[in-house]
């Protein structure tokens, strides 16, 4: 079902209205709050470390916050998935068919709503980064990593919606979440880890490419989510852009993120 056939500005109004309601619900969902708790915990550990150990730096000890954001991103994915599956869960599919707003508009609203948990994450991370800056040096690389993590929140949020559109079972997202947790690089990383959402890359330029990679993935997954119930030219364009960005950045990362035989990831 296509959205309203009136002028473009009014066609976006329902998407914005839905995004607002869904976004606020996401911020209050227990899954997002649990993820936020992890970030808070990581931040608290860092603060304690910086207060008790004079040689603690954001670079070395800030990993607890980074770990927190990993959980936040993964939990956001399950949260958006849960929101998208609400109609199926509550048996409201039939009565909502009789309403003028169609499925694709609602998915669009949820897509836009992923900005809310990303904003929530950004606020938390910016606060702790500001604190870290008062205790010691915070490099550009650190900031790029933070930005990369925030993009990951959006990408995984969109992944949750794509999964709900194509594999509408409540068990899919938790299993994928577990899988993502398992492929998160730890101490000994391998070459392909550079393509995982939470890869930490030691070069500013390549870290930016990773963010582009994640944005491309987000576009692709977003198109997949909306494209389940609607086919428009805009979607094809966005899909093509997503595919292009993803492939280009993946190629760059794979070829340049591991120069020679040295360790290529953080």
């Amino acid at each position, binding site marked *: 079902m296509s959205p309203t056939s009136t002028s473009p500005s009014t066609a976006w109004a329902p998407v914005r209205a839905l995004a607002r309601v869904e976004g606020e619900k996401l911020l209050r969902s227990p899954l997002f709050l649990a993820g936020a708790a992890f970030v808070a915990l990581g931040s608290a550990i860092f603060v304690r470390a910086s207060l008790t150990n004079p040689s603690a730096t954001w670079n070395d000890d800030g990993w607890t916050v980074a770990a927190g954001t990993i959980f936040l991103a993964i939990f956001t994915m399950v949260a958006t998935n849960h929101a998208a599956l609400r109609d199926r869960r509550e048996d*409201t599919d039939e*009565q909502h068919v009789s309403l*003028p707003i169609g499925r694709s508009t609602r998915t669009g609203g949820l897509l836009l709503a992923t900005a809310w948990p990303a904003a929530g994450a950004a606020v938390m991370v910016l606060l702790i980064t500001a604190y870290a800056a008062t205790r010691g040096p915070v490099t550009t690389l650190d900031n790029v990593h933070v930005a990369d993590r925030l993009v990951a929140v959006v990408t995984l949020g969109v992944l949750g919606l794509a999964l709900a559109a194509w594999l509408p079972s409540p068990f899919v997202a938790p299993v994928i979440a577990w899988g993502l947790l398992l492929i998160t690089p730890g101490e000994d990383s391998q070459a392909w880890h550079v393509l995982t959402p939470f890869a930490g890359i030691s070069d500013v330029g390549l870290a930016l490419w990773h963010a582009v990679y994640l944005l491309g993935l987000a576009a692709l997954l977003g198109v997949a989510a909306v494209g389940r119930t609607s086919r428009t030219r805009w979607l094809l364009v966005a899909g093509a852009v997503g595919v292009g960005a993803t492939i280009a950045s993946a190629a760059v990362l794979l070829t340049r993120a591991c120069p020679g035989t040295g360790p290529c990831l953080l």
Partner: protein
Amino acid sequence: MSGPTIELRNIEKRYGAVRALDGVSFDIGPSVTGLLGPNGAGKTTVMRMVATVLAPDRGDLRLLGRDPSSASDRVAIRRRLGYMPQEPGFYRSFTAFEFVDYVAILKEMTDRANRHDEVRRVLTAVGLEDVASRKVKALSGGMRRRLALAQALLGSPEVLVLDEPTAGLDPEQRLRFRELVSQLPGRPTVLLATHQTEDVTALCERVLVLAAGEVRFDGTPEALAGTADGRVWVGADREDGARLSWRMGDGRHRHIGDPPPGARTEPATIDDAYLLMVGDTTAREGAAA
């Protein structure tokens, strides 16, 4: 607009081998119309078609002058439609207000202030203003039913499709429902499927009886009751020849069917007429099940 709001012409619908609707035709304009019939395919199928949820296999359906088989017309119809299904679903973890607010967005009420006003209006209309911030899962069955009615009333639609709106409501709530329907702003077309014949007598200008996929009666409630005139009588004992009889509270027996000569006939009600019109269908369907 001129012309009927809801037009059905020779509508057919099959579910596998079962003919749910077999050539149903009627026109409804701005009024309150009741739809009576046995449980099963016919009545709910008609309601769903008018709510644009289901498409007929054959025949012509026109709602508000438009054809719901075209996607853009369908959206246009849905903007002026309110639907309360027989088994409504809810977002149980939402509060009553949040749920109706969400449906309001889906009805394209994008301005927040106006939307919230409208949500408060419909919640007050159904008497749920005090529990607006309670979660749906904490509401009783009757309250949930009223919540489903509230979301159908959003936007003062021109066509209201209500499937069993008073099921599970206590007598006071049923009377409030009648008050609500008779005071709806504008002159909407209300199609009311119900088993409560008192609601039909009290509210409906017109009643349709649907059984075995066809319209058995189309007229006023008084005329419907009138079809059973002279076929209801009271006696002291059971009568084997009656179609149905039962013992009333005062000890006498009430019978429906073909009265023996000299029996004292009683004024017939819609229930009696309904039974005489539809009773053999139900018996046949029951035997086949």
